């Protein structure tokens, strides 16, 4: 009966507002969203909600309106931890919430935020509400509805077989040591700096390893979706080799040239020259084909690979559990959970 809220105050503000037409998501709107989530959680019967502390003060700001006759009936608490204003906060908060007995974590952020949260969440399911840019893992959903679905999961009112999806993930290895993960994609870039973190120059991409990608996705997953769609539940992934400028573009499976048109960012539709691709099975590792490089995980340049490093990416089926909003609410309705007789 306990839920947690991890809201990333830094999401939705990166350079993609400049180089593309990404959504601007200011923190006041996240406050409104949190209020709607809280009301959804409460209506579903959640008794306590833990908040991650942060430099913006989402906890204080969101609860500011719930006074007097609007007082929430459930308990809300701020997690006892010192924030550092970096991504370690989200991972630590997730791990502490698990210790506190949280049974569903609601996140506000993009795929990058959820990647970090999943590292601390263990087996506790995530309800990922999108406030970021690349939204394949996190979903664009009304806050009230997300709160209701997360509440139905946290209270156990809807069975896990209806409410949860076990996702996949990628493990990135440098010289045989696991250094990080990705939930959707690991993209190898001919870069040497993390810089402003985002990916918008398709010419820098050398390889894409993905857990999924569908034609309606945005971001790098859209390339996968346009070429060989893979959904979140399928026990497979994909490894794409991207053609370098001037190199012959060939599909190794058919021997014909391929340019894949995809929505690689908000408002950014590009033709991506794919050299070849192979499907991956769970447990399979592929070698990073270009060093030195920067590997972007879930849309953010993050991992630096030196000229003498050996890097690999492994597909595994032990990604985080994610709330399936539609299926959860449909099952709740089917069970009559919204009916008072």
């Amino acid at each position, binding site marked *: 009966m306990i839920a947690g809220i991890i809201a990333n105050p830094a999401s939705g503000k990166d350079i993609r507002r400049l180089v593309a037409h990404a959504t601007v998501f200011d923190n006041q709107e996240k406050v409104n969203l949190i209020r709607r989530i809280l009301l959804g959680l409460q209506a579903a019967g959640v008794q306590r909600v833990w908040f991650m502390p942060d430099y913006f003060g989402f906890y204080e700001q969101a609860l500011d309106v719930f006074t007097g006759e609007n007082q929430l009936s459930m308990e809300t608490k701020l997690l006892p931890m010192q924030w550092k204003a970096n991504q370690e906060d989200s991972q630590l908060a997730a791990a502490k919430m698990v210790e506190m007995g949280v049974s569903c974590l609601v996140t506000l952020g993009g795929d990058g935020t959820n990647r970090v949260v999943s590292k601390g969440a263990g087996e506790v399911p995530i309800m990922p509400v999108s406030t970021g840019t690349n939204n394949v893992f996190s979903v664009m959903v009304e806050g009230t509805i997300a709160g209701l679905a997360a509440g139905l999961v946290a209270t156990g009112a809807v069975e896990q077989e209806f409410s949860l999806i076990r996702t996949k993930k990628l493990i990135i290895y440098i010289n045989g040591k696991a250094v990080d993960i990705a939930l959707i994609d690991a993209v190898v870039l001919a870069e040497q700096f993390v810089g*402003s973190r985002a990916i918008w120059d398709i010419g820098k991409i050398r390889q894409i390893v993905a857990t999924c990608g569908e034609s309606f996705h945005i971001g790098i997953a859209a390339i996968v979706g346009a070429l060989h769609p893979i959904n979140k539940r399928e026990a497979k992934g994909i490894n794409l080799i991207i053609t370098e400028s001037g190199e012959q573009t060939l599909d190794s499976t058919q021997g014909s040239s391929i340019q894949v048109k995809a929505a690689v960012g908000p408002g950014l539709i590009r033709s991506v020259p794919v050299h070849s691709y192979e499907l991956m099975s769970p447990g399979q590792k592929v070698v990073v084909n270009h060093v030195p490089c920067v590997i972007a995980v879930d849309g953010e340049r993050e991992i630096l690979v030196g000229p003498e490093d050996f890097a690999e990416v492994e597909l595994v089926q032990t990604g985080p559990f994610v709330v399936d909003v539609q299926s959860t609410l449909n099952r709740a309705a089917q069970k009559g959970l919204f009916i008072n007789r």
Partner: protein
Amino acid sequence: MALNKEQMLDLYRQMRMIREFEETVAKFFSQGQIPGFVHLYIGEEAVATGVCANLEKQDYIASTHRGHGHGVARGASINKMMAEIFGRADGECKGKGGSMHIADVELGFLGANGIVGAGLPLATGAGFAAKYMKTNGVAICFFGDASSNRGTFHESLNMASVQKLPVVFVNENNMYGISMSQERHQNITDIADRAGSYGMPGIVVDGNDVMAVYEAAEEAIKRARAGGGPVLIECKTYRHHGHFEGDPCVYRSDEEVNAWKAKDPLPRFANRLQEMKMATEAEISQIDTEVKKIIADAVEFAQNSPVPSLDELTTDVYCD
């Protein structure tokens, strides 16, 4: 963005120049050899360096009271800047401006400024001029977090947006307006959030990562030069020293200061260059040595320069 080795080393050299310049100013100020007040840029070097590396001859910059780094990054004469800070006749402003009024109009450096938020309308005006005169120039405005509370900020962003001016507003959010923390003077944490109110993009970058600043500035300047209008870039950064030299800094914890020093833009960039085999330790050391010499020479130049003579007290101060 595709910088070669020399360009990367230039970025490092520029940051090192600012750091050495400021540490030298701190030393001579503590010895009582520099008049007035000095506000040092130590810790924030990546911002001025990353932005100014994208500028062209016809471009302008407007600065703040913490303006030495902006001048160095824009390419102002190190000798003349040092002489100005020492209050000598061979300074950028013949020794009458001092630290807070260094300017070099020929370089499009519209000056450091003792008034908080005063650079905002200057840069907006320069942007207007560039557009009106069709020079293809852009104007950069460096400004602090607290100055975004001033009317000049709102008026300038509004005008720049309405007129679609080639202005890039570069906020150096070092978390304090003098001694007041941002959480005490604003109910927001990201100055970039304010851009939307004026119909322009606002983004946040790591202001201690010179490559992050460079990339953001490159895109913003390209956009502005092409007629796309203004942009607000918020650079999260931190000044290692107090607001002014002599500030006891009782409003900041050692823990906070040390956490930011661990993100010092200079060793961070130097280490990365070495990790990626783009520079050797010897090459970095050589730059450090060369820069030390340039700054030492600038001090000698300044100390050998005369103080302005009394009969020139009002020359260049009032219009003739």
